[in-house]
């Protein structure tokens, strides 16, 4: 297993290099201009100077190599410095990847955004799983019952109705009509006591539920299918024949085996948490990583978009690997070596 993990990690390096090149080249070739969104009152020669100042005058391969150096050497060194509190030589002159819009280091922006994305999107993932599991299990156990039919219908709706619709519907009901919940997420809010915690809960409910609904819809179908596969297996009949109670058969024998594919699906979905739920973050102004990406794309903030998309690529590859390894651990029949 260790050997396999190691081989996969080695293989990830060229993959990531290729991905980084493709991302860089694609964004570079896109007919986009960071000065495009500035007011027209700024004359063309000033725009040209701004572009020069952003480093756009340099040829493609030099900018790419610079970016590689900044991403793989300079930024990790900065992280190490910050973590351990000592300085390498020349840390003053070390070039960092800077956003064109904010002129600040991209990595700092990402670190600043991480908490709200992890809290809101991560929480929605957890809530989604908690909703999906019981629904999936009961739907499978009582296949074609009324509960199953309703569950199928609801998950179909949850899967096919986009979050920009459910989000706005919730806002209209709970913020505009009932005035119970805030429609705009306050990223500066700090939890210090019970009442401020309650404020935090109130502002998280809508974005979390919108996303959880969507996640649960997907996942519950998966749990149901996986449970159904196992319910007809011989070992289930054996367990029942041994006189075990239905609860034990269902929750110990069947569920455990059904969870093997489900867990890999859950692991594969984790990178999505980091990439943020772009639309939901935008609707509720959670202003996490997804919203950062959207602003970067709209403003042609190419270093920001390159870095963010590349980090997502790294996470996807990493969690693919984790899912594969988990699969091997959970199911001893599977061996990679």
């Amino acid at each position, binding site marked *: 297993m260790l050997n396999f993990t190691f081989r996969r990690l080695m293989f990830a390096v060229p993959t990531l290099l290729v991905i980084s090149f493709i991302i860089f080249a694609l964004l570079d070739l896109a007919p986009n201009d960071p000065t495009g969104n500035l007011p027209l009152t700024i004359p063309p020669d000033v725009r040209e100077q*701004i572009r020069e100042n952003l480093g756009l005058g340099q040829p493609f391969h030099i900018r790419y190599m610079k970016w590689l150096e900044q991403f793989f050497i300079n930024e990790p060194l900065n992280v190490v410095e910050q973590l351990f509190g000592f300085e390498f030589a020349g840390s003053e002159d070390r070039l960092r990847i800077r956003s064109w819009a904010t002129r600040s280091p991209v990595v700092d922006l990402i670190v600043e955004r991480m908490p709200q994305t992890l809290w809101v999107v991560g929480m929605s993932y957890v809530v989604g799983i908690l909703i999906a599991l019981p629904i999936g299990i009961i739907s499978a156990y009582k296949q074609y019952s009324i509960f199953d039919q309703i569950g199928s219908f609801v998950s179909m709706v949850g899967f096919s109705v986009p979050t920009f619709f459910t989000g706005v519907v919730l806002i209209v009901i709970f913020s505009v009509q009932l005035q119970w919940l805030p429609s*705009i997420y306050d990223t500066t809010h700090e939890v210090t006591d019970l009442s401020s915690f309650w404020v935090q809960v109130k502002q998280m409910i809508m974005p979390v539920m919108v996303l959880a609904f969507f996640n649960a819809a997907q996942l519950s179908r998966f749990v149901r299918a996986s449970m159904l596969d196992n319910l007809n297996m011989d070992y289930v009949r054996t367990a029942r024949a041994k006189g075990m109670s239905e609860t034990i058969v269902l929750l110990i024998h069947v569920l455990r085996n059904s969870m093997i594919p489900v867990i890999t699906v859950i692991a594969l979905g984790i990178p999505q948490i980091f990439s943020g739920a772009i639309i939901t973050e935008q609707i509720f102004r959670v202003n996490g990583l997804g919203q950062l990406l959207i602003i970067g794309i709209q403003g042609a903030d190419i270093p920001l978009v390159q870095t963010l998309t590349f980090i997502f690529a790294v996470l996807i590859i990493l969690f693919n690997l984790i899912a594969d390894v988990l699969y091997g651990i959970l199911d001893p029949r599977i061996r990679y070596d």
Partner: protein
Amino acid sequence: MKIRTLLLASAAAFAMTSAASAERGSDGHLNIIYWQAASILNPYLSGGTKDIESSSMVLEPLAYYDENGNMVPALASEIPTVENGGVSADLTSITWKLKEGVVWSDGSPLTANDVVFSANYCMDPAGGCNALSNFTDVSNVEAVDNLTVKITFGVPKPFPYGPFVGTTAPIIQAAQFKDCMGAKAPECTDQNFNPIGTGPFKVVEFKANDVVTYEANPMYRDPAKPAFATATFKGGGDAASAARSVLETGEFDYAWNLQVEPEVLAQMAAAGKGKVVTSFGTSVERLMVNLTNPDPALGDERATAKHPHPFLSDPAVRRALSLAIDRQILVDAGYGAAGQVTCNVLPAPAIYASTNNDWCKTQDVDAANKLLDDAGWARGSDGIRAKDGVRLSILYQTSTNSVRQGTQALIKQMWSAIGVETELRNIDAAVFFGGDQSSPDTFQKFFADIEMYTNNFDGTDPEKYMANWICAEAPTPANQWLGNNMPRYCNEEYDKLSAEMGKTAALDDRAALAMKMNDMLMDFGAMIPLIHRGDVSAHSVTLEGVRMNSWDSELWNIEDWSRAN
């Protein structure tokens, strides 16, 4: 770690409340929402309105423009003019006197050196300063004494109020930014995110592309202002939900730039929690008429003056296209209170507005048809007019934006009534308005017959704006397509008027010249103006003192804002 930050935060909150005096900060918290989030609080490094206006709460220029476009002193004690001796008789220098006793929010005094530094900071060629055009022709900025600054121009400047008038070019603190000159400018993240200012508020925390938190500046020169102790400048989302947060849920006090369908906005305003406010500056949504041939077969000479346009070079066609448009319908459908019909490319300030082109205000399809008939454009079997094998078929491009696409569709319909065929195209704004040399879709290259967008000018003086349509401004491959004369209009007489305006100081004469130039362009039909666009914002009914301003930052008088009781 977590507990420490929490403790610090609560300690800071305590310190803040105890520091606030009786009058100042008596109205609590102000919530502002801009659906474009602030990226940086140094306006010299960003031309975005969101960045300029969020920093305008902190940084101040020497003078503002008020809601009527008049200059009012901010850090200056008065507006220099030729009459009061502040502007030299030969128009080559202007001398500003600073108000006495102004201090920065860190307690140090504001001096003329800060003003000199700000000018040098922006004029550093390696800095990529966005407000550089405010400093055109400035040859020297010097401190005469501690409170006097003299700005010298290389040429006579009839309107010497470019530098430090309006929030695009405020005064920054020399002590704070001294290590941030030129190429170093973008690396000064701390300074760019938390500039020390003289304005009514100071930055407490800035989360880039998200939210700015301010508190009242304890050193602000008027001890009774601002009325709000703290303020938040939240960003992100879209215009409709920003409008909702003020007009329907009342979570926010002020929302900026609500480009929302008029009926949607009216419905939200009916909830009674907020008011929609508009003001009109100089923005005009116009059709640019390509007077050159954009045919791809022409290769490098495409859309250059060498090849006149096959049919738009006919004045009758240009006039007919304008006559066929019902501008009121366009206003009602896409702009509502935020738009007015206009027939001028220079609609404001009032002294510059011409009334000679008002024929365009009423749609006249019959007259348009007659013009085309007389000019020999006959309808073919498909209803489209043609002459000598040239069909009146127009490629009409604009940026991607739902209101613009609505306008496009309406105009297409109106033109089909006079036998003109229209093909519509929309291009992403960052591409269309971007200057990417490799893209064929920029508004400068103008590889289409008609294009639509809005343009305006900063401040109240139209000299530079009207100079956009001189011959030399035409974008060509030779000047890397950098130019503002999209129609490629070229008229010696117009160039002469433009040069004359550069030498004329008296306001009435300048107005007469600008009006004449506007009428020339309109008569010729180089542009077809459609809508005089206003700015739309909304504020809560509990917020008082908002004076909606199109000539400067909308937050220009935020020190006077207060909570109604």
